[in-house]
């Protein structure tokens, strides 16, 4: 299940896609709409799952990890998705369909519920490999039955079954078509996680592993049939996903309806959405008492003190507000404050003018977000008008410079609206630009015009070989990017959730080391690291680097100016430097 190859790290993993892409729902009434998923994890605990080639982790352990990671993500995502767990090949039998010798060794371990730490603990401690075997198709039927019974009368966005098995049990294909029909009718999506790669076809021996058994080959054929007849997309579900990734905490995009104006006579209705923005966890740490772990046992108290030697305390009521104006502090009443505040009329997305895209420096973008601006969903008129603007800008390689105000009395911004034309949609991409006060135009000594630093041809070609060996985008055929930052989950939160999970389940144990996959995901891809070895060695030889031993830090001004009247300074003739005239 878990063939993590660092350089092929692909977070486009399947369980993430189980969740539907977020639909456009206005943020005002989230409770009315069903935005819940339901999922049954169906885990093979049969005895063959404990077998493995030497040195490899048994499929059971791999599958268990996958499940743990998935449940973890669900717990920390804190959504309302419900989850069930069905084990098959278990020593006991516990399901609605079990009768006589039917549906034996299949156990519904957990009914549909919002996952919690208790479930995580159960998986950690109670879910163990069994000594029996059960038909995976039978288990599938039990899962379908579970979904059907327990979602009656409730509204769900999607029903999913996730099957984790090595397919190593004989199963009877005679019911297959009926099962497929039922899955379709109920709108259930199905995914498989198998402990071997599924490319080419089941008959080829998988890389590095043992050849598939006859049962496995037969099972794989059936799996493919099921997946093919359900939905093409889900065929990709049969692969090795990287499930260590915590589900990202998705936020519903907040619509920002506004009007794009060009002068007084042209206005186009628009809706803006945050498209890129630094995502932060929803929760922050609170301070608790070390003994009782109670938040309420701690009270925070802020006191105001004069800047005198005694730090005399004064009452809050005896303080007023002021602002610094350079060396002055200007006392400021509430009235002053209201009066002096810059006032804006309200939302605005007003075009100030148009300019060449080349006039806008990417490195001068400011702000902490990027907006995508569309026409409202059902407004064809606005759609065509906006499309006219987008296409005109795109053809002319220009941008609109706009005044952006988020809401009444919000601070105005000046920003650039770039045209963006994709296969499926067109939009404006808005980024904030700096104000004059935001710029720090430092100048730096020239590098290339300095003989001391000019690299030789030899050195340049060493740099060239390094670049060649470290290209992350492979040019041949389909351009493959070996390191897509926008596919890496924010490691800070991955690590945080890993530690939170660990601490929640094992309160008195030190924190675990970093997940190896996470460390690998942040490193130079293995292929590149290997490739660049030799060029790096050459580079080291061509460019000698030497650390400078620091002299004593700068003398203080007092030392320097102690005897300011002494005139012993040598007078340097700069005439030479300036060419003697």
């Amino acid at each position: 299940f878990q063939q993590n190859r660092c350089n092929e790290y692909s977070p486009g993993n399947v369980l993430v896609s189980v969740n539907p892409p977020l639909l456009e729902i206005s943020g005002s009434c989230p409770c009315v709409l069903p935005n819940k998923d339901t999922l049954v994890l169906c885990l093979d605990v049969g005895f063959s799952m404990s077998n493995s080639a030497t040195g490899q982790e048994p499929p059971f352990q791999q599958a268990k990890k996958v499940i743990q990671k998935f449940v973890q993500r669900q717990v920390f995502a804190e959504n309302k998705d419900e989850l069930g767990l069905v084990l098959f090949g278990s020593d006991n039998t516990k399901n609605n369909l079990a009768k006589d010798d039917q549906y034996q060794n299949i156990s519904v371990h957990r009914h549909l519920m919002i996952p919690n730490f208790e479930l995580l603990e159960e998986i950690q401690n109670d879910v163990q490999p069994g000594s029996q075997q059960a038909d995976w198709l039978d288990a599938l039927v039990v899962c379908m039955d579970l979904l059907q019974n327990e979602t009656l009368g409730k509204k769900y966005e999607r029903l999913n079954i996730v099957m984790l098995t090595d397919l190593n049990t004989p199963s009877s294909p005679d019911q297959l078509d009926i099962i497929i029909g039922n899955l379709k009718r109920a709108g259930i999506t199905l995914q498989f996680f198998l402990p071997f790669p599924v490319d080419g076809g089941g008959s080829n021996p998988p890389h590095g592993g043992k050849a598939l058994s006859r049962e496995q080959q037969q099972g794989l054929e059936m799996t493919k049939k099921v997946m093919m007849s359900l939905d093409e997309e889900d065929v990709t579900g049969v692969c090795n996903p990287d499930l260590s990734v915590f589900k990202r905490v998705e936020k519903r995009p907040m619509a920002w309806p506004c009007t794009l104006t060009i002068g007084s006579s042209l206005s186009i209705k628009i809706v803006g959405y945050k498209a890129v923005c630094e995502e932060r966890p929803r929760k922050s740490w609170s301070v608790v008492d070390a003994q009782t772990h109670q938040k309420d046992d701690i009270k925070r108290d802020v006191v105001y003190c004069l800047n005198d030697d005694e730090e005399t305390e004064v009452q809050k009521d005896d303080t007023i507000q002021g602002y610094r104006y350079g060396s002055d502090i200007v006392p400021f009443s509430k009235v002053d404050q209201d009066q002096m505040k810059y006032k804006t009329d309200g939302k605005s997305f007003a075009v100030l003018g148009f300019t060449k895209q080349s006039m806008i420096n990417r490195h001068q973008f400011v702000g902490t977000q990027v907006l995508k601006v569309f026409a409202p969903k059902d407004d064809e008129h606005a759609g065509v008008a906006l499309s006219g603007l987008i296409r005109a800008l795109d053809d002319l390689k220009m941008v609109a410079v706009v005044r952006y105000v988020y809401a009444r009395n919000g601070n105005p911004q000046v920003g650039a609206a770039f045209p963006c034309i994709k296969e499926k949609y067109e939009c404006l991409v808005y980024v904030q630009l700096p104000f004059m006060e935001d710029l720090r135009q430092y100048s730096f000594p020239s590098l290339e015009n300095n003989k001391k630093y000019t690299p030789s041809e030899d050195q340049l070609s060493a740099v060239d070989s390094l670049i060649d060996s470290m290209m992350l985008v492979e040019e041949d055929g389909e351009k493959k990017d070996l390191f897509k930052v926008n596919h890496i989950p924010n490691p800070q939160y991955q690590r945080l959730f890993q530690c939170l999970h660990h601490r929640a389940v094992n309160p008195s144990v030190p924190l675990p080391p970093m997940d190896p996959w996470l460390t690998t995901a942040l490193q130079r891809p293995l292929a590149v690291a290997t490739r660049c070895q030799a060029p790096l060695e050459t580079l080291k030889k061509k460019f000698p680097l030497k650390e400078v031993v620091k002299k004593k830090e700068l003398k203080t001004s007092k030392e320097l100016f102690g005897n300011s009247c002494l005139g012993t300074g040598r007078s340097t003739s700069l005439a030479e430097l300036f060419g003697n005239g």
Partner: protein
Amino acid sequence: MAEWNAYYQNEDEYVDRDEFEVDYKCAGRDSLVFLVDASKEMFIRGEDGEPSPFDMTMQCVHSVYTSKIISSDKDLVALVFYGTEQSKNPRNTFEHVYVYHDLDSPGARRVKDVDGLRGENGAQVADETMGSGKTNLVEALWCCSNLYSDVKLRLSYKRLMIFTCRDTPHRGDCERDRQARTKAGDLKETGVVIDLMHLMKPGGFDVSLFFCDVVSPPEDESELGLQMEPCGKLEDLRKRVRAKEMKKRSMASLRLNLCLGEGMNVAVGVYITVRQTKKPNAVKLYRDNNEPVHTKTRLYHTQTGSLLLPSDTKRAQVYAGRQIVMEKDEVDVIKKFSDPGLELIGFKPMERLKLHHHLRSALFIYPEEETVTGSACVFTALLRRCSERNVFALCKYTQIRNSSPRFLALVPQREELDEGQAQIEAPGFHGIFLPYADDIRNLDAPQLPTASDAQVDKMKEIVHKLSFKYRSDAFENPVLQQHYRYLEALALDPMAPEHIEEHIEDHTVPKVKMIDQCLGSLAQEFKDLLSHCRYTATNIVTSWPCVCSAEEAGGAEKKPKVEMSEDELRARVQKGTLQFGVKVTGTKKRELIDTLKAQLAK
């Protein structure tokens, strides 16, 4: 108790701490002395009504004062005149030197003082208070050097700017010149950087006569130290002063290693060239004396009332109904991935850098030859080849201890100079922050019809009409400007804030009237095209019969605007004069129409 405060200040783990701010504080204060010539020549107005050199200088000083207040109000600034009749300096030991403002952070009073020295009135004020007299630069420089030494604070950066339009201040008195050079040498020895802001004078300003030996040498042999051309325009002077005054402050930067591979560490400095200047927070004052107060935060135990030490607390979060508790140290250490630094991952073609991958302001990376010798050379080679091959370097960036990694696209930026050899773009890499998967939101784009070529073309006309040359320093922040305008007024006259109705010029507000005028009928025409396409597709044909047929003849299907009445066109078509009797050289619509118009005009 001070540590207490520091301890609880950053309670919210995820609030963006301004990590660079810390460095600014440790670095000490920057100081700048304006040494301004007050001789008669400085008050002579230029031809074509240009302000006098003195006036221009005061305008510059004024704008430096106000911008310091907004962006770095801790910096110290002084204003000293030389060549005055009157003398005024701390110990009154120097003649013909007038210290107008000693080294201190600028405030409202100073801004007003300088304001009073501007324009015609200002010249009169200057004449009355200081007058013009003999010039002794030795004394002036000596006086300035005392200003620096009188400051009790630690100074990180000391700069002296000489404003003059006279290239021979001592009129050929060699002894004086020699002494002045020596004095300037002393100042430079103590770390003061001396710049010359020389102003236009009839017959040209010859730097080599005297001043070339006074000013500081360029920081390295290649830097273009002294600009040979004197400033004739206020804008130029302002730019020159700004560029010098904004001189990079390596103290404020972060020194890191750029690790190309194991054992290959290049020393670099990380700078911020763009950063949002925000309205400062209010300070609390004691009502009785308007003196600032400071706050102390303390933690008490609710039950016992006893003061709690940091070690008496832990941190907690609740998930799925379970409280998870960690030590404060653990919370910090969780964020640690690697030591501070930049780690090269690899290279990518520039087109892989997406425009919309923007999270926060970019950084600027420049080598630190002083830390690791050889750094500048590798850096230059890397910069050059990345630029020539149009690739960027992808790096993992850990800013400080216990900060989690971010990825940067290092985009090469080679040095660019303007005609006057002044640097427009500094050499180095821009570090663009790249988003993680979590930072990118899934949006559901609406499916809507797209515009027709005719509509797009009409919009292009609109875009052309309203196009302008954008400059990143063209827009002032109206919120800040208004804030400081009011503060300045209140600081000078606390009783009369109501009088401040002087409105700031807000360039962020669109000039609607002007836009409407520029567009003329274009807006309506665009709207017509919109409604045509939607409701009455046939209208287009009926309302533009002639043009349509003419267009068909030209092989285009767009509807141009032809400045000719419909009837006339129709008549000409009927008469056959609209046939193309001319050679059509281009196939572009524009060219066709031009040809058509030219033909019709005959």
